[in-house]
């Protein structure tokens, strides 16, 4: 009894701590920028907007904070959380189906779509769509690779990363048509492929945040089931996990998360691959801890990457995908080496 209360209290403390870290990161995302804004101004705008207080603030500053920095930061956080959770879930589901460590590396980096095809056997139509998108964005891809190379060693990243980018683009493409994206977002394939947060406004927040929260909840509910996949799908089944249903629900959740985020900000690489692996290292492999840790780290990481992308070169926004690749490419190399060493 007392043990249960204690662990509940610990859970509450950790959750509060996590939320606090997230809030701090969001604040940092708002405060830091080309036009640095004092924290007091940010708090004032928030209190005006949220609680209807009076203000004497410069309307331009207020506008930057409320219409520009805040939505951008919230979407960055949602994207970071959603993309890293997607990566985590795919790695956990697929890991043992393709026990080979090389394939493991590949599948870890592979796209939602590609994995959905592998696991669920989605028909050839989708593959054909992939192929056409591959042709269409071939030019953009090679540029992207160059960017990745500049970011550091690529290791075996090419195959996996390429697949993911193509798949991401394919989903973006689908949603692009479905949603008839606004002009701001449609500034060109290059920007899509490298991620772009500058077009983000409030309507995007109302899509990104709920999807990230729902996706997080879907993953967390399946934490125990995901643990049971450690020794493969058959072992999961023999532990009482309804394998097919869990795969369908989780891959559905992950696809939705990835698709929505890509439709909003373009493809941002490496987050889904590197963050979950880093978090395994920090909190261990049990999903009840790993899922919240991954979501939080992903959110904070992408906020940080966004800040860096705005600050790296004065007067210019470096595509956020380049920033994540700077961290991600070496991270990917380390993961590949570690996996090989373990095999």
């Amino acid at each position, binding site marked *: 009894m007392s043990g249960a209360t204690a662990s509940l209290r610990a859970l509450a403390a950790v959750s509060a701590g996590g939320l606090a870290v997230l809030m701090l990161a969001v604040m940092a995302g708002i405060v830091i920028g080309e036009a640095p804004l004092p924290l007091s101004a940010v708090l004032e705008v928030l209190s005006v907007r949220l609680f209807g207080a009076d203000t004497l603030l410069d309307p331009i500053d207020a506008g930057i904070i409320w219409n520009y920095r805040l939505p951008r930061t919230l979407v960055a956080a949602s994207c970071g959380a959603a993309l890293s959770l997607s990566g985590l879930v795919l790695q956990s589901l697929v890991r*043992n189906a393709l*026990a080979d460590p090389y394939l493991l590396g590949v599948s870890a980096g592979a796209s939602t779509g590609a994995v959905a095809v592998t696991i669920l056997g989605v028909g050839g139509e989708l593959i054909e769509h992939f192929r056409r998108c591959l042709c269409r964005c071939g030019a953009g891809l090679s540029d992207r690779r160059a960017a990745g190379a500049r970011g550091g060693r690529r290791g075996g990243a090419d195959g996996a990363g390429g697949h993911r980018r193509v798949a991401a683009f394919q989903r973006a493409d689908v949603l692009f048509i479905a949603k008839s994206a606004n002009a701001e977002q449609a500034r060109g394939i290059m920007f899509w492929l490298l991620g772009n947060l500058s077009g983000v406004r409030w309507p995007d927040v109302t899509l990104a945040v709920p999807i990230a929260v729902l996706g997080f909840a879907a993953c967390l509910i*399946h934490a125990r089931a995901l*643990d049971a996949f*450690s020794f*493969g799908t*058959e072992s999961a089944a023999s532990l009482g996990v*309804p394998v097919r249903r869990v795969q369908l629900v989780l891959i559905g959740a992950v696809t939705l998360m990835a698709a929505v985020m890509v439709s909003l900000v373009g493809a941002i690489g490496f987050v889904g691959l590197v963050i979950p692996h880093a978090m395994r290292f920090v909190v261990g492999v049990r999903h009840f801890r790993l899922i919240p840790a991954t979501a939080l780290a992903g959110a904070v990481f992408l906020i940080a990457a966004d800040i860096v992308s705005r600050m790296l070169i004065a007067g210019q926004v470096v595509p956020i995908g380049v920033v994540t690749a700077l961290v991600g490419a070496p991270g990917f190399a380390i993961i590949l080496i570690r996996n090989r060493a373990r095999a």
Partner: protein
Amino acid sequence: MKLVAQGLGWKAAGRAIVQGVDLDLVPGETFGLIGPNGSGKSTLLRLIAGLLPRAQGQVWLDGTPLHRMPRREIARRIALVSQHADTTETLTVRDAVELGRTPWLSAFSPFSDLDRQIVDDALDAVEMRHLAGQGWPSLSGGERQRVQIARALAQRPRLLILDEPTNHLDIHHQLALLRLVAGLDMTVVMALHDLNQAMGCDRVGVMQGGRMVACGRPADVISTALLSETFRVGARILTDPADDSLLYRFHMLENDG
């Protein structure tokens, strides 16, 4: 728990891997499954556990058809230690054994003191408690095997299915495992390669080419004729004067290679 199977079969790539196997497990018995490599032992065990898609035949647990039961209900009754379960995850020994509690816990129910006790007992049963904190990749083959068995024990099943459980185990742990299995008050089905160990089972079934060609008390089933036909070896049967138990000493058949 009573398990009845009728007409069990499974095909892969058009080939019958297992066909027409009937089985009737008496509650509490230890049933040994023997047969040469590729004779379908592992496949049959997975069929009994309801783990193979497109299976032929039918399995009943205490009168309920297996395919009507939710996976969780099956997992509360049947635990399986498969021949090749492995992972690249760096979970600890305790993590792996705790997986055995999965069918008994809902998504958010925390581990209770009872669950912890069950996990501790399972670790003790295979003498792995002292390594509870060690990571999976650094375990030896035999240690991994013992952890898998502990995981299955932590599942608190009523039918325990073991696929070559003495694999990788040193002689002490082989004997310890057999004694553990004999002392469990649950039904056990296990595939074995050591025929002298199979002699310790209540009953044995012999697999050959996907069929169960013989089934009964070990002393009745394991004859020199069976050994030469099914296993392609000759054997002399010796009697241990200490307790009159039968022992086999094997040799290649004269006309073989």
